[in-house]
């Protein structure tokens, strides 16, 4: 559906995006993840045809964004980082205006506007002035604006910024509902959002793609070393040395200030849990807890952004 080949964007000689290539299949939900200023917004602006890339090409549905911009823009619904709203307009006339310039046939405008208002939960405010709405409602009007023409591709730049937790959940459910039918690209710097809505994640840092994988694939990157949390009721003196003696164990550290809580780090290939349990029972250490810790997405993200190998 979307084919991006080695796009670069320079702003006055300073690269905002460097040689980025990726592709998105139809119906997929792709998450852009990255710290602030990593190039997420610039990449999205290039995809929507708002700014042309300095070099490289973008194809949406087989059409090149520079050669057939009008046709490509027809396929895309876009919610920029700051929702583009005419503050002096009422919600419904604003949506009708956007529907008209997005090329919705005149007769269908009313029905499409009604549907978008309903989908984004705007029914109660449809007759109010946009400038007077709360940030959350403005964000929803921005989202409604992107959905109006039932686009094949939805590009959402930080769609849940400024919303309260229950609104965030509604918007996420809405986005999940698009999967399969629409192709969605969303950017965020909230990691939980990616876990909840996306099938595939792309981590962007300093204008480059730092990692691109499925969620499971990213999680597996953390598995090169395995970590086990251990809690004992009666840890004997020298228990750490004892544990280090188990084959495969690389290190043992105290977990916080709790007496008896340890983190055992081991080679990713070997699972030391069975051996630890056996030893604990043998020595009568009072095994309370033994569980495998997987690296959180957060940790993987930070490792990737810092340039360490995960």
């Amino acid at each position: 559906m979307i084919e991006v080949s080695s796009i670069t964007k320079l702003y006055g000689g300073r690269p905002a995006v460097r040689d980025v290539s990726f592709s998105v299949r139809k119906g997929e939900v792709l998450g852009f993840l990255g710290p602030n200023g990593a190039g997420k917004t610039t990449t999205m602006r290039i995809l929507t045809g708002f700014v042309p890339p300095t070099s490289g090409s973008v194809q949406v549905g087989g059409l090149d964004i520079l050669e057939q911009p009008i046709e490509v823009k027809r396929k895309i619904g876009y919610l920029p980082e700051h929702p583009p709203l005419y503050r002096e307009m009422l919600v419904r006339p604003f949506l009708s205006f956007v529907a008209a310039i997005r090329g919705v046939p005149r007769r269908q405008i009313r029905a499409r506007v009604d549907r978008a208002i309903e989908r984004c939960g705007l029914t109660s405010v449809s007759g109010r002035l946009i400038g007077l709405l709360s940030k959350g409602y403005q964000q929803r009007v921005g989202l409604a604006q992107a959905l109006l023409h039932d686009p094949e591709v939805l590009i959402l730049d930080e769609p849940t910024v400024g919303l309260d937790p229950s609104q965030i959940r509604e918007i996420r459910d809405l986005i999940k509902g698009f999967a399969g039918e629409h192709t969605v690209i969303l950017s965020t710097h909230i990691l939980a959002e990616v876990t909840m809505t996306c099938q595939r994640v792309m981590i962007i840092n300093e204008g480059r793609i730092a990692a691109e994988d499925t969620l499971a694939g990213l999680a597996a990157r953390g598995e090169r070393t395995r970590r086990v949390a251990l809690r004992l009721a009666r840890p004997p003196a020298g228990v750490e040395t004892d544990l280090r003696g188990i084959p495969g164990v690389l290190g043992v550290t105290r977990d916080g200030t709790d007496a008896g809580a340890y983190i055992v780090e081991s080679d990713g290939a070997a699972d030391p849990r069975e051996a630890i349990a056996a030893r604990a029972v043998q020595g009568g250490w009072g095994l309370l807890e033994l569980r495998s810790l997987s690296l959180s997405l957060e940790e993987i993200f930070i490792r990737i952004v810092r340039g360490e190998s995960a």
Partner: protein
Amino acid sequence: MRNTLTIAGREIRTYFTSPLAYVVIGVFLALSGYIFWSSLWRFSELCLQFGANPMYRQQLNVNDMVIRPMFGSMGFIFLMLIPLVTMRLLAEEKKNGTSELLFTCPVTSAEVVLGKYLGGAMLLVVMLGVTLSYPLLIMGSGSSPDLKQALVGYLGVLLMGLSFLGVGLLISSLTENQIVAAVGAFGALLMLWVLSWVADSATVTLATILDRVSLGLWERAGLGLGGATLGDLLNRVSLLEHFQDFRKGVLDSGHVIFYLSFTFFALFLTQRVVESRRWR
């Protein structure tokens, strides 16, 4: 075309939902109305004084004494008000980030520029339309102005206003700041307006200037030093000079073409500016 009209329609609605349109139209009507009323009053005074005298009666012409100065003053008021009409057109769009909406919609930059321009032009037409009541007032009072001359005058004011709008829109495309857009447009219009003031004393010919610039090569090439003067050129470019014939009620297609092509050129430049700013 549909996109252009949709954008123009939104623009007009915005003008009339904000106080801007009412303030601009109100100020325009108050000023032009006062000037119209005072010249009409003076005219009727003169009629009372000299109307009985057949020698003076010939010179008492309502077109010359009331309608012509009215158009002159309208032109001058436009000079000051049109920058306020155009200042927000493209500058506000950029500042609020709504340009990101417009330029990711399937519309071309030419459609956007034209739509914005038509929105402003509609406001201008409304403003002028209300003043059509002035000549009607004169007719109601029993005197008979030459309507054809008045219509030519209106056409002139409209064309001049449209070219002002073009300049204003161009300046608005260059900045995000509405105040800068207004001041810039006012400066540019005033410059184009007063260009002809020095025309009478600028008697140096264009050929002489070219000769100086080319270090004498021009004359050596036998191209001559006569011909049009710098003053002629300034007169041609001045937005005011082309208006004078309309005021007198003389319809000259040359002036019509000047205003139309001037406007077209301003819109063309605006479209180029809008397009080129995306590439930075």
